[in-house]
């Protein structure tokens, strides 16, 4: 029987702790090693990693596939943009509070309706409800900027300690990058704790067998609801981090195919593992960037990748790698 060595409050095995530290260290050195454009790509990867991981709280751990997460990502983004437009807020911390808060609220509203259903109907309902948010953003164009969207110049960080310099790209590639990295590490740690906690075990039980979960005393609907809201919050967090990087938020990120992208990321990386969605987010980001640069029919390319993924390697990149490693270990 394997010994589970709990390392501090996060219950990491020794190799997991050192491995994570090494990765964070490498990520920390990157801005000095690669050009700003590449650093920005990494930033996007980290941000979508949070979104995909937040999404996967629902899919991988609770067994609920949501096609409506664009609503939370977009809410996080628009909350920041609207805070600037109507309240003149420039502080990143306030954006985060507003963005996460708004996403949590939306999560409560959507969750209250959606968690009464499961499986396909849940997916469709989440999609349909997320479209309400999109249609509101379009209809109330005098608030949301309609299809033009809203601009968001670089914010101040750490309560005004770090102000944007004249060179926006340098700011995004250094100060903002580290900001995103720190938030990423904190968010990942929080979600790791959540899935390893008794609550996380309860979610997995619900995923595996909701009848039995009910029959061991787990309040299935309530926990699904909590997971939904938490998932919404983390995805919204990603959305808020995304806007300054993108400079602009438009209704595209509220439109349901964007939800599909988030699903794609999680599945590409492997939704049955913890790290899968993060890897998937990075991989998807690079894949899309490559595809867009390569052909105007980039959706076709991505669609084919997804189809092949589902048919041939449904466990995704990380899941398949783990399987192969296990087989290799057994053989040797």
């Amino acid at each position, binding site marked *: 029987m394997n010994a589970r060595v709990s390392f501090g409050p996060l219950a990491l095995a020794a190799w997991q702790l050192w491995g994570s530290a090494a990765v964070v260290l490498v990520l920390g050195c990157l801005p000095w090693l690669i050009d700003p454009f590449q650093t920005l790509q990494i930033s996007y990867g980290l941000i979508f990693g949070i979104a995909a991981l937040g999404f996967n709280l629902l899919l991988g751990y609770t067994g609920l596939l949501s096609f409506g997460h664009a609503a939370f990502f977009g809410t996080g983004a628009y909350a920041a943009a609207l805070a600037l437009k109507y309240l003149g807020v420039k502080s990143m911390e306030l954006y985060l509070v507003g963005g996460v808060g708004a996403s949590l609220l939306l999560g409560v509203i959507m969750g209250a309706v959606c968690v009464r259903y499961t499986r*396909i109907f849940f997916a*469709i309902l989440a999609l349909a409800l997320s479209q309400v948010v999109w249609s509101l953003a379009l*209809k109330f164009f005098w608030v949301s900027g309609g299809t033009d969207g809203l601009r968001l110049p670089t914010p101040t960080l750490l309560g005004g300690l770090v102000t944007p310099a004249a060179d926006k790209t340098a700011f995004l590639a250094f100060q903002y990058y580290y900001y995103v990295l720190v938030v990423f590490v904190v968010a990942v740690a929080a979600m790791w704790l959540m899935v390893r906690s008794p609550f996380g075990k309860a979610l997995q039980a619900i995923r595996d067998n909701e009848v039995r979960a009910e029959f061991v005393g787990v309040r299935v609907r309530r926990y699904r609801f909590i997971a939904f809201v938490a998932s919404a919050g983390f995805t919204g967090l990603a959305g808020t981090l995304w806007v300054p990087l993108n400079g602009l938020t438009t209704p595209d990120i509220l439109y349901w195919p964007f939800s599909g992208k988030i699903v*794609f990321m999680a*599945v590409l990386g492997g939704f049955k593992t913890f790290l899968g969605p993060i890897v998937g987010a990075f991989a998807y980001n690079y894949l899309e960037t490559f595809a867009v640069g390569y052909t105007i*029919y980039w959706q*076709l390319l991505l669609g084919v990748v997804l189809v092949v993924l589902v048919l041939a390697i449904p466990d995704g990149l990380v899941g398949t790698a783990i399987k192969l490693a296990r087989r290799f270990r057994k053989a040797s």
Partner: protein
Amino acid sequence: MELLIIQTLNSLFYASILFLIACGLTLVYGVMRIVNMAHGNIYAVGAYVAAWTVGLAVAAKFPPAALFFVLLSGAGAAALLGAVLEPTLLRPLYKRAEEYQLLITFGLLLILEDLMRLLWGAHPLTASELPDAFGSFRVAGATYPGYNLFVIAVGIVAAGALWAFVYRTRFGVILRATAQDMRMAAALGVDVKRVYVLAFAIGCFMAGLGGAVVMPISGAVLGMGVDALILAFVVVVIGGLGSLEGALVGALIVGAVRTLGITYFAEIELAVLYLIAAVVLFVRPTGLFGRA
């Protein structure tokens, strides 16, 4: 009074299109327990193929009366596409968790979207010769485009034909038996594979037909499939997933709300629609005619 007639006819027109899309979606779910995320794009394929063939027919100097038969080519192409897609993309996933079909059909959506762009370009196609050929009619004192009346007729005929097919033919019995209990049907000797392909093809035919008949009015536009899917979902959420009566009633409700909405409460018309859907779900969680 005149306004009321026009509003009613517009609602019916809109409902006809919605029914054609939604009935395919609900039929496929009812028989195969599959939700096809690319269903809207099948509708779009119907529109594009129809636009293309009508364009060819117009160039070949076909008489306008023949043009609406040419429209059916859109439905036919959609059905053919469905017959190819089901065995290749969907059959491998029947043994797996149902969420995988959502994923693969979402991939299919992306593929079809760009295939249409590749084949027909980014500019909308249309066939205005058709509505022009139909002229206008006077209906109870109001003047109304003949083509729209034709579309309503197509909707009614399609609903009737589908109903007759499902409830009055031998194959319809097999279809319903397979929908109720696939294993039992297979044990009784039903070729479930064949039933599935046919059911899927019929569903795609209906969607393609919807796209084909709406095309002369709204054109074949990139992104129309993605937009249409949402409305189809609202229709089946209200009507009940898997129920044809539900698709009909749902289409009528959504058609009416949309028509009245555009005229009287344009800003919140979609919100009203979702509100109705939410109320229906609250009262009858599986939709008006849905089964648990």
